[in-house]
């Protein structure tokens, strides 16, 4: 681990220790929260007992679907908009103003159309994740240095090979930003729809525990959810960092 990673870990552990002390000394009443040590114990208990195994499986599968569709769909959308001037002129303004629209408002309508199952949740998550991926794909393709394309032509690289051997690698730093955002937004989309209305899933169980004053289960699930999100993000960050190091060191 780098010096900065140790510092980040120190900040998290330090905040946990301070919270624990505030609980033990009665500064924070237990009615509001439970101490970090109990949150961790609850998280471990949930993992060991397999109590919410089905919910985790449900949410993680939804997240995986949403990430796959957001990344693939966002990339293809971005590529199409970049490549076809008519699409570019027509759709680009929509994309840039899309961030002002909260996709979650369409959830009730989607439940009416598809029923209370995973499909509306995945659609909402994809609506969250697809657009940042598309915008970053377009940005990445716009910023390819023209001389790289000239090198391709000077080497008689075919149009298809140019996409895979020059344009995609050249746009990779931007594509990676898009993937990172698509992953984060897919997690947010899935968990937030489960939170609002769902028959299963981590978000649904957190909401259920909250409604039933079951702080222990609720915080245990929150800790596990944070761990999953952090793991996903750290993995992407690691690979992104490795790639950028080659470009800039």
């Amino acid at each position, binding site marked *: 681990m780098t010096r900065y990673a140790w510092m980040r870990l120190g900040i998290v552990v330090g905040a946990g220790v301070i919270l624990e002390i505030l609980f033990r000394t009665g500064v924070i009443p237990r009615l509001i929260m439970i101490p970090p040590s109990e949150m961790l114990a609850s998280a471990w208990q949930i993992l060991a007992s397999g109590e919410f195994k089905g919910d985790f499986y449900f949410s993680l599968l939804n997240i995986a679907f949403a990430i796959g569709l957001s990344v693939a769909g966002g990339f293809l959308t971005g590529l199409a908009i970049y490549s076809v001037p008519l699409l570019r002129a027509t759709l680009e303004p929509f994309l840039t103003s899309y961030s002002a629209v909260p996709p979650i408002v369409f959830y009730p309508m989607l439940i009416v159309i598809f029923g209370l199952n995973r499909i509306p949740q995945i659609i909402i998550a994809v609506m969250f994740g697809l657009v940042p991926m598309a915008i970053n794909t377009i940005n990445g393709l716009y910023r390819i240095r023209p001389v790289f394309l000239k090198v391709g032509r000077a*080497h008689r690289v075919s149009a298809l090979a140019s996409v895979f051997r020059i344009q995609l690698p050249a746009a990779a730093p931007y594509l990676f930003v898009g993937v990172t955002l698509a992953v984060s937004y897919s997690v947010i989309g899935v968990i937030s729809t489960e939170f609002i209305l769902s028959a299963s899933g981590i978000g649904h169980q957190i909401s259920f525990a909250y409604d039933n004053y079951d702080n222990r289960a609720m915080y245990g699930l929150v800790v596990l959810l944070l761990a999953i999100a952090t793991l996903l993000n750290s993995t992407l960050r690691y690979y992104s960092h490795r790639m950028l190091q080659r470009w800039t060191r």
Partner: protein
Amino acid sequence: MHARVEGVTRIYPGRSGQPPVNALGPIDLDLYKGEFLSIVGPSGCGKSTFLELLAGLAEPTAGTIEFEGRAVRGQVPEGVGVVFQEDSSFPWLTVWDNVAFGLENEGVDPAETKRRTDFAVGFMGLTDFAKSYPAQLSGGMRQRVCIARTLVLQPRLILLDEPFAALDQQTRLLMGDELLRLWRETGATILLITHALDEAAMLSDRVAAMSARPGRLLEIIPTGWPAERDSRIVEDARFGTITARLWTILRDESMKAIGRTESRESA
């Protein structure tokens, strides 16, 4: 005759009601097999445009270009290699992979790719940096990677568009020596675009001076240098004579180019 340019012009259509821009020509030029020819001229005279037309990266408005007897139009012919002014090494590939890029693209047998890439990397003095990424190299070394990437394809005509423009004077002289060595050992025909009169005078068998825009060839000066030459030729008295002659031809043209810039700025 290795390449022939006849009556080539390039006119860019005017934008938003502006008249068309006559960028180049007409130009006639014969390029002899195995010679080293440089083109010098004032900024904006169309030197790089001419190179792109000769390479097949752009199409002339009028005129014909032939390489080894075949017409060049809109596609880079087999046997022609191009090195660009900007650093064009791919930052996502190692030095070795950058150099092997063209061979892998052409589907050359892996053993042959390795043999030729190892040779080109070694020839350009990059063996110790084969596994490095371009970002870890100096500007001069990155340009050597680009030259090696072209060299590995064993081109018979190498077109260089101010490849040393971003380098300091000492590195340019040394890179010039490398280029002369490459030229002698490969037997390729080289056309070098440069704005540096001394570089053109030192490296070339013939130097073509180009007018201000629209670029036309004003005069072609044979240098008379032996093939076995290097940067020490700058000590020869004839080097000064050639450089002075080039400046005499180009001084008025450079003034015109500056004057045009000034009038544009004041407009």
